[in-house]
């Protein structure tokens, strides 16, 4: 097994991007405002999304000629970390990662959509169930006939606010990827466990879609989108975990019981040390996944880079999902009663962490995928 040694550090440019996203979120969308927002009619914060567009977050990996930042997925990963840290209710993952990756891979036919996404003018959603793992078979829930799409896809992330749907469908010519105006679909919001991330069931009842990739190209575009999504989701999970750790360290430093800060009790200290170790490891794994995803998108990248991107994305999902959930769960426990109340924003992170652990494939599914990639064959059942 050979692997290229990827750059696992943050560049200066990446640190600057982090600082500007963080400062924007602290200013416009602190966790308390997010909490107030989640029970409103419009969970997605479109005003915030426009502000993020202003600092280039909406089109990071898009070429400059389409209005993008011409950056790489490494920068997208840093943005994802910060958006996770802020449980920001914006369609970054659904639109700027999943749909964008699929449209980018589809090629020039989607330039129009991509330009509108980069500017923040519109958002898109990739019409697959949010729980789909990268290795899943090409979905057949939507059928194409005579240029009309029919079928229902459950649990599509960021669909409620999307303007464009990128729909995988199977027709007479085999698999295809279609761009469909959201107005032509029935988008029914479902009650999401993650209060800050809207999901919807998308029904197409004869909608017209523009074919943007077909056959093996469509399959590759969808797979690339899901792999990229898995890698960047892990960066978001890292941000969630880091917030939970930081909040808990702060809380245990100041909360006093038995005449001393609870963070001075050794059992608490050891648990937080364990968590810090796990988060540090998650950071290395996430950087590796982001770098591998970026490398697979570079000109001249081939099958080896694509394979490393898949391996690192699955590794990241297999590892970081558990870390983020653990961090959020420990945060609730170590905050005691207040962590169990609705009024403290901690539960937003718990729900995000647990949902993220299911999204784009559970750790279990990714371990199985890894087994195939690193030649550790399954046992006979």
């Amino acid at each position, binding site marked *: 097994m050979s692997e290229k040694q990827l750059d696992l550090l943050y560049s200066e440019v990446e640190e600057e991007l982090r600082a500007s996203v963080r400062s924007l979120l602290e200013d416009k969308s602190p966790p308390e405002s997010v909490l107030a927002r989640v029970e409103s009619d419009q969970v997605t914060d479109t005003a915030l999304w426009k502000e993020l567009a202003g600092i280039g977050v909406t089109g990071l990996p898009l070429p400059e000629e389409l209005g993008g930042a011409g950056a790489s997925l490494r920068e997208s990963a840093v943005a994802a970390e910060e958006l996770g840290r802020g449980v920001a209710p914006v369609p970054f993952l659904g639109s700027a990662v999943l749909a964008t990756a699929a449209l980018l891979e589809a090629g020039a036919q989607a330039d129009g959509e991509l330009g509108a996404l980069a500017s923040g003018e519109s958002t898109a959603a990739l019409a697959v169930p949010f729980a789909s793992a990268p290795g899943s078979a090409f979905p057949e829930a939507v059928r194409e006939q005579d240029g009309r799409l029919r079928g229902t896809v459950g649990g599509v992330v960021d669909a409620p606010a999307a303007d464009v749907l990128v729909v995988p469908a199977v027709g007479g010519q085999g698999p295809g990827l279609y761009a469909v105006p959201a107005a032509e679909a029935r988008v029914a919001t479902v009650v999401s466990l993650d209060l800050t991330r809207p999901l919807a069931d998308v029904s197409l009842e004869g909608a017209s879609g523009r074919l943007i990739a077909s056959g093996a190209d469509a399959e590759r575009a969808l797979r690339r989108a899901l792999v990229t999504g898995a890698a960047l989701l892990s960066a978001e999970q890292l941000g969630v975990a880091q917030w939970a750790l930081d909040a808990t360290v702060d809380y245990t430093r100041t909360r006093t019981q038995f*005449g001393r800060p609870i963070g001075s009790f050794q059992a608490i200290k050891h648990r937080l040390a364990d968590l810090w170790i796990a988060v540090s490891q998650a950071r290395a794994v996430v950087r590796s996944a982001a770098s591998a995803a970026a490398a697979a998108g570079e000109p001249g990248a081939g099958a080896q880079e694509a394979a490393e991107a898949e391996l690192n994305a699955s590794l990241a999902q297999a590892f970081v999902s558990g870390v983020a959930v653990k961090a959020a769960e420990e945060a609730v*426990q170590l905050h005691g009663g207040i962590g169990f109340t609705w009024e403290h924003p901690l539960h937003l992170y718990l729900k995000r962490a647990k949902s993220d652990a299911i999204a784009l494939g559970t750790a*279990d599914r990714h371990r199985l995928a890894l087994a195939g990639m690193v030649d550790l064959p399954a046992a006979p059942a």
Partner: protein
Amino acid sequence: MTTAPAGASLDASALRQRVADFVAEHDPQTTDQHEFLAARFDAGLAWVHFPEGEGGLGAPRALQPVVDAEFERLGFTPVGREGLVIGLGMAAPTILAFGTPEQRARYLKPLYTGEEIWCQLFSEPGAGSDLAALGTRAVRDGDAWTVSGQKVWTSLAHRADFAILVARTDPDVPKHKGITYFICDMSAEGVDVRALRQITGEAEFNEVYLNDVRIPDSQRLGAAGEGWRVAQTTLMNERVSIGGHPEPREGGLIGVVSGIWRERPEVRTPGLHDALLRLWVEAEAARLTKERLRQQLAIGQPGPEGSAAKFSFSRLNQEISGLELEMLGGEGLTYDDWTFRRPEGVEFAKRSAGFHYLRSKGNSIEGGTSEILRNIIAERVLGLPSEPRVDKDVAWKDLPK
């Protein structure tokens, strides 16, 4: 092995006979439940270990399950008693142990029949695990006390008639020494009950604000300054209750998840299978441990496994519900209802997977955090030395808050 305690002339068979005689006189099929329970209290068959005239017969505590089982066998199982858990489980034994004859006469019977509902005003925002740090003040004022402060995590406060309450009556002595225990009338002026919403979206609990609430001194339980000792009796009774019946295999949440596994082959993966089997084994081990404790209690040999049972229950609920969500995949990304409401008494196991996951997070906090339970086991069961204490000899008012 066991020597006969006082009242032991009342053995199991004598008690079964009394129950049979009682049921012969009060047909559970035709008698109103309230009337039936009042008569049962008067017959000493409410709590057989309580004194005669106060719901009991002075019999050994271990025989209560015999009586309950016999009533059940003969066709009487009381309904609608969920709201009485604090009254029956915590207030009654405390009133019995520390109440004046007047208090016992006034409170025990309506508490038992369910006429009067009780809640517990103990925890405060600044005093959770460290309950003795509580800051709700009670100031003596003639033949009464004036009480002000904030209590939290109070279940049933919005339905309760009375509360058991601990408050600080002397801030100038170390924290354990300046606490007094009261019975608080929840309809008194200055008692303000507000629903406390939790991470599931609903509100099982309340915050209770006390604003210059007057409590007559006759409602004090135990001496002034002795409240910590009184509260120990209350808290000793706060644990997972060990019922009179063996719990069946797969009785709890593990049964729900095993059911999903059996009924929905599409969720199965080898990794989830292994995770499910590990939890199945642990759940069965926890069930057998509880059953062993039940058998010990039945022969009058309670063990320290009680706090361990509570600990294991919360850990298992959390792990099993976490697995349940992952097993459900996309369905696990959804929730049933976030509406701010009072729970309607739906059985926990029948709620959605997301609810199981979120609600069980409270299990390791409410009624003694898992951290405190571990301290108790380490110090009281294993006899490990206590940590250096910085708060024992300092006046309450001088402690860091």
